[in-house]
């Protein structure tokens, strides 16, 4: 039987952001309001 010297490289480490980072982004999105006045836009964080 043929010897296989190469190592299995199919071990992919799945990289994902921390839950806190995603939660922060979702909360940030909920808190952010963009108000338009004439041609200007103002950002407001409603926290």
């Amino acid at each position, binding site marked *: 039987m043929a010897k296989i010297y190469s190592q299995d490289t199919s071990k992919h480490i799945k*990289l994902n*952001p921390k839950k806190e*980072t995603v939660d922060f982004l979702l909360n940030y*999105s909920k808190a952010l309001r*963009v108000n338009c006045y004439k041609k200007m836009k103002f*950002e407001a964080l409603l926290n």
Partner: protein
Amino acid sequence: MKRKLIDDAVLVKNYINGDENALSILINRHQQKIYSFIYSKVFDRDITEDVFQDTFIKVIKTLKRGKYNEEGKFLPWVMRIAHNLVIDHFRRNSRMPKFDNSGEFSIFSVLSDSSLNAEKSIIKDQVESDVRRIIEELPEDQKQVLLMRMYQDMSFKEISERTGVSINTALGRMRYALINLRKVIDQHNIILTN
């Protein structure tokens, strides 16, 4: 049952119209690709986390401001933002290089904080007040020369002019002042080191 996948373009549209859940789906759908992309460039989990967060903050702001116009190409657009932020990160770091202290040589073995801590500062004050008290014990002529030289930083020429004695006399008084100071310190076992 196979769940029907909602298009990115639809989710983006829903998000712009106020559906916060759409953003959650978009992040969940693409987080691994974007995060891995950033990590493949910076090789640091903390920096990756920061760049990932900044990327989506930019995405959120752009979408909420109604400036998004690349319908149907959400992921490439986010990837481009991430890519630009990675470049920004490296530019910032090249301007302000970070010292890697992981090797055998530790930079902190040669660097020290020259400012005094609270304890050393108290000791310094005590030493200075002790010296002042000992100086007070010196004969008046020696004390005068020493104070002018050490505390007022005057030259011996200036001291001689001020006190009306020759430079040699001023030098001699200074010498005796120091000898007497050492004598008093030795006699009383006063420790004047910080």
